[in-house]
């Protein structure tokens, strides 16, 4: 099979229902969706897939999201990959920590409308395409 023109979006989410909801949100778009349900799997898949964007939860089994973010951003092959956080953690410290770690945006699940998240991801990927 030849290489696809689609961009790869890696969704890291341990909640099965939410993961499927996010898949439904994006799978009809022009992106190829990959998913990981724990931190270790997320790191492994990010290194294998070289996704164009990572949507990352922070509370994850095995390796937490902050650590995943740190590993991704310290990997020369992945450090330019935009990471958007979608998490239940909503304190200013968590937001600050994630942004300091290299996340380009931070969405708190309880306050997030999925259409806003969808638009943000499209916007980031379109900028990435143009660049």
């Amino acid at each position, binding site marked *: *099979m*030849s290489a696809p023109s*689609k961009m790869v979006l890696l969704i890291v989410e341990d909640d*099965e229902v939410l993961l499927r909801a996010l898949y*439904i949100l994006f799978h009809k778009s022009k992106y190829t969706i990959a998913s990981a349900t724990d931190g270790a799997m997320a790191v492994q898949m990010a290194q294998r897939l070289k996704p164009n964007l990572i949507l990352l939860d922070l509370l994850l089994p095995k390796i937490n999201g902050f650590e995943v973010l740190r590993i991704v951003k310290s990997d020369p092959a992945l450090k330019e990959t935009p990471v958007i956080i979608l998490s239940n953690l909503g304190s200013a410290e968590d937001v600050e920590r994630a942004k300091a770690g290299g996340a380009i945006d931070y969405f708190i699940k309880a306050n997030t409308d999925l259409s806003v998240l969808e638009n943000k991801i499209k916007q980031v990927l379109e900028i990435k395409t143009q660049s």
Partner: protein
Amino acid sequence: MRSAWLNLVLSLTNRIYSRKQELIHSTGVKGMRHVFVLISLEIILAFISTPLYLGIKSASVSAYFREKGGYEKINFDYNIRRVLTLTGVGIFLLIWLFKLAIIIFVPQAYGPLPLYRVGNLEPIDMVVSGDLAATSVAFQTAKTLSSLPSPQLKEIRKVAGGTYVFIGNSQPSMEVVLLLSEKNTIVYSGAADKNGRWEIKHSQKDIRLSEGNHSVLVYNFDAKSGVRSVAAGEKFFKITNTWIDSLVKDVDVSANWSVVLIVIVGILLTFLTL
């Protein structure tokens, strides 16, 4: 529409997360309240998110692997909590669907379900079948004439649909009265044919005999003369309920116990997933 639904799924998963956080830090009755709310939310989420499970097959998500130069299927890790929750809801639904099916279909085969019992508004000594109503008083007050031959009860046959057939011999064309023991005596009458054969049917659909032994008495009754024969020897037969009878009888209790079962399963799931 799709967006609203997905946001609802997101909202519910958030509520469940929040409730779990509160549950972890609570004790006593307050904790129990969180458990019940959690169970309710999980069940609601299970219903609302069902299309997610129906719409996406496992391994239907593919990703491009550069190192392999092609697509490869990626399986979702199936979350045991969701599986168990859906299983719990599935059991709940099955039980209630089963109950509904029994309520709808069983009466067609076995007669009305004894879901409610109404006390006698006018207590009487005898439950009388319709066509005997006019003569019921007459045979009770009839004189016993020992010279009048007694009818014979030869056979009690159980046929499909909960009907019992009492068959016997008598004087030709004589009226036969049959008494069935129950809480109230059940009275039937019928006429013997020209050969002296008579047959009386009792249907459980009309009057339900309880499980156990019942006695049967038969005698002849001459309405014109106002006399009756001596009753033939008392005979007994046994009503044995099948498991279907018992199930039908207890269906409401069984179905309501399913609620308790679901709550127990829900509590177990909640503690498993904290």
